[in-house]
């Protein structure tokens, strides 16, 4: 399996009135063909912005990709022209967004919105595109697909909308599917349906998936490889079994322990003390040190780098420096 996408030292900053927000600060990661990469981390840690940066969907102003490379299919997307990016969007790389309620345009029918993408990227005429759209809707398990094509988004339930989004994203057989918290807004029973669907599709088309979520459970179920982010940085990276079996970074550890697990009883939950740092006002040194129970002096001064600890397991923490 070759590398499909590799992000190197990506920095995306927002220049706001109150200062510079380093939403993505020196992030490197890569996705291989046919692989599912899980990206986890808490709200605001830069997961979505990393994903948006790939397709240059960062609102500008105030956002800007400051530095780094995004190599997709051998091409650096940060240097691509708008026209080139446009051709990749929706075609080779598709996105499913978090909010199925607001991500579909309320004034166009589901069909219109899917057809639009097909016509644009696959040189089909309208009728053919419509047929294809209906096929796609059937594929994602929407009953009565030939009626639903003509429905407006508000006429569908959340689960159906998200499926329509997936149909739209998959319509052009993308090589990479970015799923930005595709199920957070849904119920567990529906979430299970959607995740099942995505897995099926992936197996059929060998699409790579970048799955962004903060739910470790979802990651455990879906991902092959996991990246943990905290405050704009990657703090740990490993394959999925490794991460859950042998978490290294205190933040990953904290995360795994703070969540009550259904079939385990605990008297008290472990928790990571303190608050998520203000992106405008990051602490010196390791961003996690104020909440870290194992913080050392060096953590207050120096930012740890992401280094390989075991094969394929990389972590950014001073605790493991020696191991290198």
């Amino acid at each position, binding site marked *: 399996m070759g590398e499909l996408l590799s992000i190197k030292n990506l920095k995306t900053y927002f220049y*706001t*009135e109150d200062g510079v927000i380093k939403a993505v600060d020196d992030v490197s990661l890569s996705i291989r063909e046919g692989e599912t990469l899980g990206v986890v981390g808490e709200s605001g840690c830069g997961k979505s912005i990393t994903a948006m940066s790939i397709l240059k969907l960062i609102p500008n*102003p*105030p956002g800007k990709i400051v530095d780094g490379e995004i190599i997709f299919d051998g091409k650096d997307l940060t240097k691509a022209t708008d026209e080139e990016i446009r051709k990749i969007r929706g075609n080779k790389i598709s996105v499913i967004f978090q909010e199925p309620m607001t991500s579909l345009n309320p004034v166009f029918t589901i069909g219109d919105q899917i057809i639009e993408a097909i016509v644009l990227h696959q040189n089909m005429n309208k009728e053919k595109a419509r047929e294809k759209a209906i096929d796609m809707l059937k594929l994602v398990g929407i009953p009565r697909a030939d009626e639903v094509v003509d429905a407006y988004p508000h006429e569908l339930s959340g689960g159906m909308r998200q499926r329509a989004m997936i149909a739209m994203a998959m319509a052009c057989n993308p090589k990479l599917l970015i799923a930005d918290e595709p199920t957070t807004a849904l119920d567990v029973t529906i979430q299970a349906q959607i995740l099942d669907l995505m897995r099926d599709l992936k197996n059929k088309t060998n699409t790579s998936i970048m799955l962004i979520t903060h739910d470790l459970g979802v990651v455990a179920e879906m991902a092959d490889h996991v990246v943990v982010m905290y405050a704009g940085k990657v703090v740990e990276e490993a394959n999925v079994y490794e991460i859950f079996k042998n978490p290294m970074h205190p933040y990953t550890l904290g995360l795994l322990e703070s969540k009550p697990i259904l079939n385990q009883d605990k008297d008290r939950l472990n928790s990571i*003390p*303190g608050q998520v740092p203000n992106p405008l006002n990051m602490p010196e040194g390791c961003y996690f040190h104020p909440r870290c129970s194992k913080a050392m002096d060096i953590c207050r001064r120096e930012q740890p780098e992401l280094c390989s600890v075991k094969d394929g397991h990389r972590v950014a923490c001073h605790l493991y420096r020696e191991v290198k």
Partner: protein
Amino acid sequence: MAELKKNTNKNVELKGAKKEDIMSPWKVVKHRLRRNKLAMVGLYTLLFMIILAIFGPIVQKYVFGITMEKIDLYNISAPPSLKHPLGTDEVGRDILTRLMYGGRISLTVGIVAVSISVVIGSIIGGISGYYGGVVDGIIMRLVDIFMCFPFFPLLLMLAAVLSDYKVDPKYRIYFVMIIIGILSWTGLARIVRGQILSLREQEFMQAAEALGLRDRRKIFRHLLPNTFASIIVSATLGIGSAILSESALSYLGLGVTPPYPSWGQMVQVATDYYVMQYEYWKWIPPGVCIFLTVMAINLFGDGLRDALDPKLKR
């Protein structure tokens, strides 16, 4: 829970607050406003106008001995000169002085009228939005009725009633302001109501209900302060339109009573073809003054809107 107990000590210094720069919502607005150049231009123009209107006539009176009623029969319809920087009108009164005096009236009209409409509008809008249902239905019909109100007949009636009660004409303009205010609250009431209808559904209002707070407190402490943004914007813009209304009324001969000038009344002389063509100093300055003032208010109001809208944060 460990850190929870860290500062259970009641005597912890409240001074801690000072260390960090606390930005109240208003400070944030001020801060943002200050960075908006257009809005600041508006603000300074407005301040300039206000200062001129307040102190101008005083200076003219005590320094140059010119009052707005003073007739200079030797300089009738005189073009601008050193003595009369903006010339004189057809009975020889100094236009600059009258202009500044007119500014007092126009600005007071704006402020008084808007204060009235803001008070009425926000209270009625608040009540209507808070109680909803039948109360809201009735109030909104009332608003509809008010919106269909004939403006001019009302003012005519008012003028007659005022003269019945022998109100000093000097103060009559205030009644015009009141009427403008009374007739223009409807828009604001609608805006406030609309916002409150949605604010009412917000969880902090449910919380207030759960705390068992009184209605009065809920309306005036919780709901209305959250509509301040639109109230203030609508007020600043309202001042502009009230000034225009007064001008238009004066222009139609229904505004202030001579010899007290208002800008609208001063522009009116331009209906005379000759004045329009050859005596520009009589009508251009008041027209420009109205324009500048309203423009300044609008610029400021617009900047305020941007500053108050958290979504517009740059």
